[in-house]
């Protein structure tokens, strides 16, 4: 495990992390295209080393910073794009349920038992297409 970068300061760079990542990106591009000559002690010879960055692991907030996609609001989840999120009339939070719940709230006078059964049905529903 390599420590790659330490950004000092009282606050996190937030969206501007891409400015700080420039030296790392430059070096990774160089390692992939122009490579680096390395000595292998096991084979006692030089070889050309390349490096590929395969994935990034971060929490959801840092994911927003690195990908440049907003992780807040109705379009927070990139996998849920086809099923639009909605907000309740008296609430400010985006909810990622499907159409059934929206209709459940819109139907005035829905009985409590019906709502409970609808929610139970919701729990059995499949995840978005990308996760199947």
């Amino acid at each position, binding site marked *: 495990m390599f420590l790659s970068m330490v950004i000092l300061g009282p*606050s996190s760079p937030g969206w501007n992390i891409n400015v700080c990542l420039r030296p790392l990106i430059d070096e990774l591009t160089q390692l992939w295209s122009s490579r680096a000559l390395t000595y292998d002690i096991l084979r006692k010879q030089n070889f050309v080393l390349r*490096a590929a960055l395969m994935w*990034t692991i971060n929490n959801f907030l840092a994911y927003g910073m690195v990908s440049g996609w907003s992780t807040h609001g109705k379009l927070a989840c990139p996998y849920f794009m086809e099923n639009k999120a909605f907000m309740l009339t008296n609430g400010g939070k985006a909810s990622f349920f499907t159409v059934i719940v929206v209709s459940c709230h819109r139907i005035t006078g829905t009985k409590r038992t019906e709502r409970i059964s609808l929610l139970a049905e919701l729990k059995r529903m499949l995840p978005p297409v990308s996760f199947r």
Partner: protein
Amino acid sequence: MLKENFYAAKSMMKPFSLGYQKIDICPNFCMLYYLKNVELTECMTCGHSRYKPRTDRGKTPVAYKKLKYFPITPRLQRLFMSSRTVEHMTWHQSHHAVDGVMVHPSNGEAWKHLTVCILTFQLNQGTCILGCVQMDSTHSGHLLLLILVGRSY
């Protein structure tokens, strides 16, 4: 191996040449004073000064904010210089995996796809595969770690 003081620890690490670069950065995170912009003293976007106001005591200019960057190329090369670590670099290629059991990312689909790509493009030289971990905390600095997951021949 714990050294008695910080100076001794730094002296021990010096021959390995695994140091770090200090790059000045605009305190509003607009730009790096890096490569062709290394001589600038003001930010090109927001106009913030690069250095703190000079005091009578110190003569060298002190930057407002610095980025510490640890280059990865010498660190990767270092792993091949030691006979202990070089064995582990090819482990994922030589170990035998049981079908249907995932014990390492090298058994995963993404890794296999990359291996196929490397073979297709005749790039079957040593390729290091890296993973990136971000440690984010809103109240302090920001850490970025790279994990070396393996290497394919």
